[in-house]
Every structure is written in C-alpha cells, then in structure tokens.
C-alpha cells in the first residue's frame, strides 16, 4: 500500500505550486487515476447537463408563456442547490431501499454522474436563459423567413450566442469539476474507484495535510485550464 507522492510530499505553503507541477510531471499512477476519474465523471455529467440544460434554457429564454417569470426564478433558485443536499437526495433514490436501488449504482462513478448532472443542469439552463433572453428578435425572424424550421432556428440562435452559451457550459463544468459534496456522498471517496480530486483534497485536508491539499487544488486548476483552452479552440473553429 504505497502512496509515494500523497504520503511523502511535505512542503511549505509556497512550494505547493512546485509540488503540483511535480505531481503532474511525475505522473504518479495514483494521482493520474484520481485526475482521470475527476475529468471523466465531470465531462460526462457536463455533457449530459448540456444536452438537458441548453434546450431548457432556450425554451425558457425565448418563449413567452404564462408563468415564465416563475420558471426563471425557480431555475435561478436551483443554482443554490447545495451539493450535500443533491447528494442526499440522489442517495435516497439510489440506496438499496430507494426507487433505483436495484441497479446497485451507489458508490460508483455513475452515481456521481447522476448527482453532478442534477447540479450542472440548472446552472447551464439559467445561464443559457440569460444568454438568449436579450437576443435580437431579428435573429429568429431572419431564420424563419429564410425557411428554417424550429430546430434550425434554435441552432441558429445557439450559433449567434455561442460565446455566452459556451460560457454557461464552462460554468457548469467548473462547478461539477470543483464540487465535493456529491462526489463524497454518492461516490464515497473509495480509493481507486470514486476518489476524485476534490474528495482527495478533502481527505488530505482531514488528515491535516493542508499543503498537499492545496497542491492537489492547483493540479485541479491546471486541468481546468487545459479543458478551457480546449473549449476555446473548439469555439474558434
């Protein structure tokens, strides 16, 4: 049971950055695994949340229906869902007594994905609403008069507001990538299976290994930076 890096690095605060870089360069298998789990789970949940959140956001942001303002307020309110509460809520659904107990999903990456999906969807939806709400009405009219059907009008609106919608998706990704409560409750921080960067950070913090925790936090930020760069490249194409 060796954890060469996690155990041996003891450093002072200002060398945390160096050790973070060391961690990345060293490619310590445990760190690599932890990062991989974080990235995989967060990307999948963000992807799913995008598929749900962007259409919801478009629907609420573009249509005028009664109760629209209420729906918007509810979406905004859901931004304040604490991860612990989402975690507990999904826990009840997935636990052996729960509705989906038969699938035995608790303490798996799938459970984390479900929880993070619940977390990210309202974020992406609410920010998509903000992005498209003030859109020039001529975008829709122009698309319609050039023969676009409803679906095509939507993709046109997305294309016009691509920067703001990608910002919404980035905000969603960042939130789930940095969240901790859901991963802890639904993943269980089980070593090698559901231990991701944030639960590892909490774990090291609990042990009093603050510097190591901060170094892991920097690793997380470096990865987030990489993902952002990637998104920006996609966006430019």
């Amino acid at each position, binding site marked *: 049971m060796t954890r060469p890096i996690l155990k041996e690095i003891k450093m002072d605060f200002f060398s945390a950055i160096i050790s973070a870089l060391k961690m990345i360069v060293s490619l310590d298998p445990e760190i690599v695994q932890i990062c991989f789990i974080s990235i995989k789970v967060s990307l999948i949940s963000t992807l799913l949340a995008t598929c749900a959140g962007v259409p919801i956001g478009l629907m609420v942001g573009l249509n005028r229906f009664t109760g629209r303002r209420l729906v918007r307020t509810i979406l905004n309110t859901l931004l304040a869902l604490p991860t612990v509460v989402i975690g507990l809520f999904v826990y009840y659904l997935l636990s052996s007594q729960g509705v989906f107990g038969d699938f035995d999903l608790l303490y798996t990456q799938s459970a984390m994905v479900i929880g993070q999906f619940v977390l990210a969807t309202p974020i992406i939806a609410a920010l998509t609403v903000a992005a498209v709400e003030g859109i020039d009405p001529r975008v829709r009219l*122009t698309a319609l008069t050039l023969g676009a059907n409803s679906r095509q009008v939507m993709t*046109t609106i997305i294309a016009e507001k691509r920067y703001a919608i990608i910002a919404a998706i980035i905000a969603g990704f960042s939130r789930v990538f940095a969240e901790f409560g859901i991963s802890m409750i639904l993943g269980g921080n089980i070593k090698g299976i559901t231990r991701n960067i944030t639960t590892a950070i909490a774990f090291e913090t609990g042990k009093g290994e603050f510097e190591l925790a901060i170094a892991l936090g920097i690793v997380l930020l470096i990865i987030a930076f990489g993902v952002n760069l990637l998104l920006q490249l996609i966006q430019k194409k």
Partner: protein
Amino acid sequence: MNSEFIYQLTDVKKSYREKNILDIPDLKLRSGQIQIMVGPNGAGKTALLNILSFLEPPSTGQVQFLGQPVTYQNNDLADRRQQVTLVMQNHFLFSTTVFNNVAYGLRKKGLDPTIIKEKVMTGLALVNLSDFADRPAAQLSGGESKRVALARALVMEPSVLCLDEPTANIDRRHEESIENVIRQINQSKGVSVIMTTHDLNQAYRLGHQIFSLVNGRIVTTSMENVFSGELQETNGLKYLELKPGLKIYVDASHPGPIHICINPRYIILSREKFKSSARNVLTGPITNLAFQGNLVRITINVGVELTAFITKASLDELGLKLGEKITATFKTVSVLVP
C-alpha cells in the same frame, strides 16, 4: 384552386396592446406582379409585410394564401414560409461571413454544397458583391450589408418576395441595378414581389400596382400629395390650413389631426382660373416635369409642392414649360381622408 391572387385578406386587424395599427377589411394581391406599398412612417407597412410573410399572425381576420386559408398552426406556417421570403427594413446579418449568410437558407433546404456555392456566387454577382464572399458580415458598409441581405433572399428563389424598403441606404447605381434584378426575377421567374418604398419615383418605375397605407388602412389613391394637419371649420366649411393663407377644403367628419391625400389624376391644370364647382383652386410655378410611364408628372409649387398627372397629349396641347405659372383645380370630395 384560385391562384390568380396570392393573398386575400379579409377583415384583418393587428393591434399592439389597445392600439390598432392595421385595419384591412379586404385586400387581394395578384400573383406574378410587382406590388408596391407606400405610406408615411408608422402607417403599418412593416406590420403588413410581417403578416404577409407569415412572421406574425393577424390579431383577427383571415389570410388566404394561394386560395388556401392560413391556419397559423406550426406546420402550416413552416410550409408557407418556404415560399415567401422577406428582406426586413432593418435587416440582420448573422455574425459569420458574407458567403455563409447568403448560403444560410440554401443549407437549411439541404442542398448540395457545390450547388449552394454556385447559387451563392450568382446571388452575390447580382448585387455586385462577388469579391465580398469571405468578408465577415460585421465589416460591411451600410449599403453593402443591405445588398447582402437582398442576395440572401434572392438565392432562395421564393414564389413571393417581400421587400421592406430594399433600396434605402443604397447608392444610385446599385439602386438601379437592384431595380433591374427585381424586374428580372419577376419577369423571367414569375416571382411575385411586394415591396415598400418612400421613393415614389421608384414606385412608379417598378410597380405594376401601387397601393397606399395610411393609419393602418389601405387607400386607393397614390401617395403623392399627402398632407397632414389639424382639421378646422369656418362657416361650415372644413379645411386644413397647410401654411398661412394656403387652405385645402376637405369633406371630413371627425375633427382633430388628420392625414389627407389628393389623387394627382383628379387635379385639373389650366393656364387661367375658371369658374367651377371645384372649391380648391391653387396657382404656382412648375418646378419639375417628368415622364411617368405613359403619363407626365408635373410638380407645381403652390406653397407646398403639389403633383399632378396629365397625358402626353395634354402636355403638348398646353405646351407647359418649366417655371411657368399654372393653376391647379380639384374638388373637395376628391380629397381623400383615410
């Protein structure tokens, strides 16, 4: 199916909040023609074009398109919108290249890329912007941008082309070439064109039919000689005083601010004043003489500019010259109050 008319509007009204901005008891538009709508700002021209291009439903009333009533259900509208394309007064270009803008509608139709490319380049050539294909749409001048919007509509090859002030912001040369394009697609491809303009000369040059919208109502006169003012009454005679001493007698019931139109065909020109039942008799010098189709358009400065139409024969008979004084006579009842 009666497709002599592309549109038949019955009792169509449009209102925003309580304000009624369109009120059209009956309007039939023939297919295969260039129909021109004129009228003052806020008359409802754009609102009517939005209804004709199925972007907005009327508040009440029925619209028939090619003999079929329009139900304003989603599928119905999608089909119809494929056949009608509108170039908005305040057009919008997508934030991409000129090429992609013009290709937009063709791509939504799912055409083959090589065909799209061909059509787009043809469209850009029509508006003289072949070199602009790769330019970002945001970097165009006002007129260039408008012409791209026109090309984008033209490549769609719709059955009906609605144009809201298509040559505003466009220079004279291109105005002419765009007029030619409009004429050409109307003649060679039978596209029905419905357009608005504030340039009456353009309306006469292009239009098979011209109709006017004032205060949301169709008026049958042309839009020459539209004046507005406060209706006044002295000795039972109702009139509008356009300038001190310049009165136009009208036959109107409701007082307050009104628009009036004087049909230039009903104005009689003579070298001398003559006694008649006509109450409006105004004199001034000729400031403009021009051919207008088969007629001659004569502008007389009677304090305001008044336009009259006469035949070429009358012109020769009267031997009118620029700068000559002449008298215009018309009846109270021929002053239209919409």
